[in-house]
């Protein structure tokens, strides 16, 4: 009889311990979360509007850097030679065979065409739009520089080709293509 009572007591106490511990743990986690999450981007940062850009004034061989979400975006009117070079490069020569184009499926191949495709599937190979941040540690690469006359990062020596694809150096990925769309033949909206 005593044993039965003891057992009942013990299991009831175990339950109380576990329940109290669980409530305490969950409660603590819930209380900590605001202190962690306050560091994530706030509403004013997230509300940054999309950016429009008129491509028409950009001459062949000219580039501009504009700001989108506080980041530099490279827009380049590529020369015929640059496009030829980028198209001729076999995919097997690339360090990163993925397009890294946010307008395309995540596994799209890094062909030159896939690097200049917008959100609606429109291709204008003259205009290359990419986020101007080296995929190594975030420096801004220099244009028309490096072995492939594409982009060259002065910080740690990453070399990108004329389609912004990583060819040499420590960067792991091709330059990212931001989400964008042609609104007319010469007008784009980024974001």
């Amino acid at each position, binding site marked *: 009889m005593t044993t039965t009572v003891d057992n009942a007591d013990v299991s009831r106490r175990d339950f109380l311990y576990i329940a109290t511990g669980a409530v305490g743990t969950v409660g603590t986690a819930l209380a900590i979360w605001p202190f*962690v999450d306050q*560091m*994530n*981007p*706030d509403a004013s*940062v997230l509300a940054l509007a999309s950016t429009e850009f008129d491509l028409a004034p950009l001459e062949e061989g000219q580039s501009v*850097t504009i*700001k989108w*979400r*506080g*980041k*530099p975006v490279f827009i380049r009117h590529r020369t015929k030679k640059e496009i030829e070079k980028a198209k001729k490069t076999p995919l097997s020569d690339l360090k990163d065979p993925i397009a890294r184009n946010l307008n395309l499926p995540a596994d799209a191949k890094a062909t030159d065409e896939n690097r200049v495709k917008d959100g609606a599937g429109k291709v204008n190979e003259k205009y290359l739009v990419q986020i*101007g*941040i080296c995929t*190594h*540690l*975030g*420096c*801004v*690469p220099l244009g028309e520089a490096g072995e492939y006359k594409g982009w060259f*990062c*002065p*910080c*740690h*020596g990453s070399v990108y080709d004329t389609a912004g694809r990583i060819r040499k*150096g*420590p*960067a*792991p990925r091709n330059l990212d293509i931001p989400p964008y769309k042609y609104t007319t033949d010469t007008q784009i909206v980024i974001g």
Partner: protein
Amino acid sequence: MSGHSAYEFKNPVVRWLDERLPILSLVRGQLVDFPTPRNLNYWWTFGGILATMLVIQLLTGIVLVMHYTPHTSMAFDSVEHIMRDVNWGWLLRWMHANGAAFFFVAVYIHIFRGLYYGSYRSPREILWMIGVIIFIAMMATAFMGYVLPWGQMSYWGAVVITNLFSAFPIVGKYIVTWLWGGFTVGNPTLQRFFSLHYLLPFVLAALVFLHVWALHITGNNNPEGIEVKSKEDTLPFHPYYTMKDLFAIVVFLLVYAGFVFYSPWYLGHHINFEHANPLSTPAHIVPEWYFLPFYAMLRAIPNKLAGVLVMFSSLIILFFLPWLDRARAKSARYRPLYRQFFWLLVIVCLTLGIAGAQPAEGSWLLVARLATAWYFIHFLVILPVLSFIEKPRDLPASISEAVLGKDKA
């Protein structure tokens, strides 16, 4: 706490206080009567020098905050305001900036002293490990402080260092966004760095307290690398080591003052006099000199994740040092082979520092790779192997015998 002071205070008021809060007997026991090995040389004064530098950094930092504004549109100007308008602002700012550099000078000497004399060996493992944590916390503090003036080097240093975390698969980019509070280094980043740069020195002070506590449990190591055996081996901390430390502190501060007054920007980068510009990376960005060896390791590895892991491992490996070195003698004085490898390690670390300041290409890249490899070989291969094959010289029977000679001891 060996040698707890049994001192009885004569003054009745003091005794009344001490019976209720034994703070005075604690000071008496730990800072006055504390038995300290009689043979400590000047390499042992860097602990006191480091404590002094921490106090200087705290004091100058607290008053600088009275004039600094942590906002991207005003930070740069407020630092110039401190330099030009604030009474003695130039002095306080140069003391703080050069104070960080001299803090690292002292901490590197302190660490290499520990490596030479085997101060990390049993029973001082915890003391050593707290020291490694202090070193890492110091680096985080210095890095965030360097961002605050919001010049070009501040900005791009922050970009590169926070991007280190993007190397981790899957979670990396979320961590980086979380650190930034945006899609790039911006105002939220500056404000949180300011908050943490103010907090961390107090965390450092608490860690230093634990470091000294652990030290006072085991007592000091000493140049002979043998433990204290009798009263003959020790001297009271005061006045013997208070005076020795004080002398070393004065000499150290003289050199520091030389930089503060005559060459305050010698260790800085002129490009930081240019306002931060998120659209243009300076042609040659380098961290402060005290980070260069680690920066060289990061760049030596051609793979991003591997480079980051190697760099962090170079610090983590120090936690395991007490168990990697199992030699019979602690001090390099009695280890003829280890002594040579110690100096080779010093040269390798200096080489890494020089390589870190050069552009990452050509022969410097090769040098950085070889030096990085040797750094790890030293700890993972050389130390364990030496533990077995090295025959140490005969150790003296006691510290007093080593100091006074066999006859007098």
